């Protein structure tokens, strides 16, 4: 029974990892950079929701509906942040040496981290949602309500992104740029703008998921790097630019981590995920759903 419980926990948390990772996979696939500041977008989203709620209720507590109402705020703010970062900084190093792009995004990451510490202090915070207790008990399993909400929220955001890419004109432009920027430019797509929109959407999804994270885990300024690295593990597993791959990878990583925490010790989860990363990279660098090999 313990095993089933750990797997359920893993799937619940894994959907959140997947929600963060889809944006990371999208930028990697379309703009061809590794955004080391991606996790910081999660953090900023969490804080946006936290402050929006505090502004309305006076403290970071509220009803479920009130909390859900702050999600669009997190999404909108992070869309702007992502768009501006791409337009002003990242676009200037695209196409150069890959590790110049890594350094620029890492520079953005540490600058955002410390600005966040200055603005909100290093103390962990969380959003309290009124109906969280008690947890649901079903078939011998314990399921915290907010984890279920976050699970559904992350899945909805991921599905929305998928539909957006498949159905809308902008989504098709994004896919065109990801496949061939030169050809996309030839047929009249504004490649620079499309890349910035991609960056914005990716950050927006991360921000939305960050708001859900604030309800079940703590948020604090330095949380970002771990989410970036987990996203990397997930994308390596699922394949660059693949949204179904990111979803499968996220669920798997969450399950592996919860099983490690449950049967070994929670201290070992990070070491296990990074070891998994290295093993995966060596054994199957294209990912399970991957298309292209290197870069």
């Amino acid at each position, binding site marked *: 029974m313990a095993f089933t419980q750990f797997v359920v926990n893993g799937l619940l948390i894994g959907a959140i990892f997947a929600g963060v990772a889809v944006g990371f996979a999208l930028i*990697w696939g379309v703009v061809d950079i*590794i955004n080391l500041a991606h996790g910081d977008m999660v953090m900023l989203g969490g804080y946006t929701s936290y402050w929006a709620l505090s502004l309305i209720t006076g403290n970071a507590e509220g009803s479920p509906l009130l909390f859900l109402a702050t999600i669009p705020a997190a999404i909108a703010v992070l869309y702007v942040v992502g768009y501006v970062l791409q337009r002003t*900084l990242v676009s*200037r*190093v695209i*196409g*150069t*040496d*890959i*590790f*110049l792009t*890594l*350094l*620029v995004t*890492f*520079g*953005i*990451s*540490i*600058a*955002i*981290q*410390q*600005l966040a*510490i*200055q603005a909100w202090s290093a103390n962990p915070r969380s959003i309290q949602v009124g109906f969280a207790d008690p947890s649901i008990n079903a078939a011998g399993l314990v399921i915290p309500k907010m984890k279920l909400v976050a699970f559904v929220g992350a899945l909805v955001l991921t599905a929305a992104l998928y539909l957006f890419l498949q159905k809308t004109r902008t989504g098709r432009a994004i896919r065109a740029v990801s496949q061939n*920027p*030169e050809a996309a*430019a030839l047929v009249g797509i504004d*490649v620079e703008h499309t890349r910035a929109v991609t960056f914005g959407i990716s950050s927006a999804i991360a921000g939305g998921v960050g708001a859900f994270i604030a309800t079940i885990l703590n948020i604090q300024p330095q949380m970002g*790097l771990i989410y970036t*690295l987990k996203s*990397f*593990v997930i994308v*390596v597993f699922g394949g660059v630019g693949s949204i179904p791959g990111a979803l499968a990878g996220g669920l798997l990583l969450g399950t592996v981590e919860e099983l490690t925490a449950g049967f070994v010790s929670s*201290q*070992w989860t*990070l*070491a296990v995920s*990074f*070891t998994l*990363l*290295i093993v995966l*990279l*060596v054994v199957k*660098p294209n990912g399970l759903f991957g298309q292209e090999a*290197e*870069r």
Partner: protein
Amino acid sequence: MSTGESDSGEGLLRSIVPPTQVERVFDFCDAHAWKLLLAMVVVGALPPLLGLQQGYYMTVISEMYLFAILALSWDIVGGQTGYPSFGNMAFFGIGGYTTAILVKDFAVAFPVAMIAAGLLAVAFAAVIGAAVLRLRGHYFAIATLGVLLAAQQVSRIIDITGGASGKILLDVPPGTVFYYLFFGVLVAEMAVVYYLSNTRFGFILNAIRDDEEKATAMGFNTAYHKTAAWMLAALFTGLAGGGYSLFNTFIDPQTAYNGAWNVELIAMALLGGSGTVAGPVIGAFGLHTVIEYVETAFVGWQLVMLGLVVIVTVIEFPEGFVGTLREYAGEMEYYKRGGMAAVEDEEVSSDE
């Protein structure tokens, strides 16, 4: 992009420091590299002899040497071979813990413990290198970052490292010892890197950076060469870490496997000019001075400043100080030839 000043500013610069003069300095340095290194040894040996035995500046200069070692080590793989490692601090941490544990728990003499630190880092590099050096580009960068974080996490869990609280080392040699130690390692490393950059070994490393497939096709054993370079980088980084834990009188997972330092040392190599011997050293001295100033003047904002410095450097001077100067000196070639050859041909290809 790298010559970002206005026309009038460049004209002024050109009249004060003509490119021919810069070119002459480069020629002089190339011709007298060994003598310059000897001169550096003499100058470097002076401060403690002149009575500067202890205190703030002594510590700062020792740290500068330390960072120069780290930046130059990173450059052996990152700059010369073109594998952008984000995990070099793993070797530093392993070296640091090795000396700390040997000196404190096993009462091993410090010099022996430090050599052990270097060797253990090399052994670790050989094992890890077999896995990660098969990866390229983004994958290599993140895999090495993963190695660093996994090493940090393990040191936080196991007992022999003192767990999350680390180890305090009180019985340490005086500051002058570390001054000469870091200085000695730096000079030795500069000599090795300079020597290698004029040998077949060094040329093969650069060939791997420029086009690994072609280098393999030409019959070079690229796997052997990049692993050897990686182990060499680990040796010097491990030695530096081995010295640092005692110099710092304290070691814990956060200081031993410092992710921010890992970015700093890459920024140093880049700022100075990667792929050269002098570049990373100049970059380390320059950036460490800036960071030291920022840390005292803008407490709590140093990472913001570091982030901005890294971003601006990477965007405006991707070639670094030495590279930009060399480009500037190279302009003369252009005028001499009088041809239409593009001075900055790489800029054309960088934009689509």
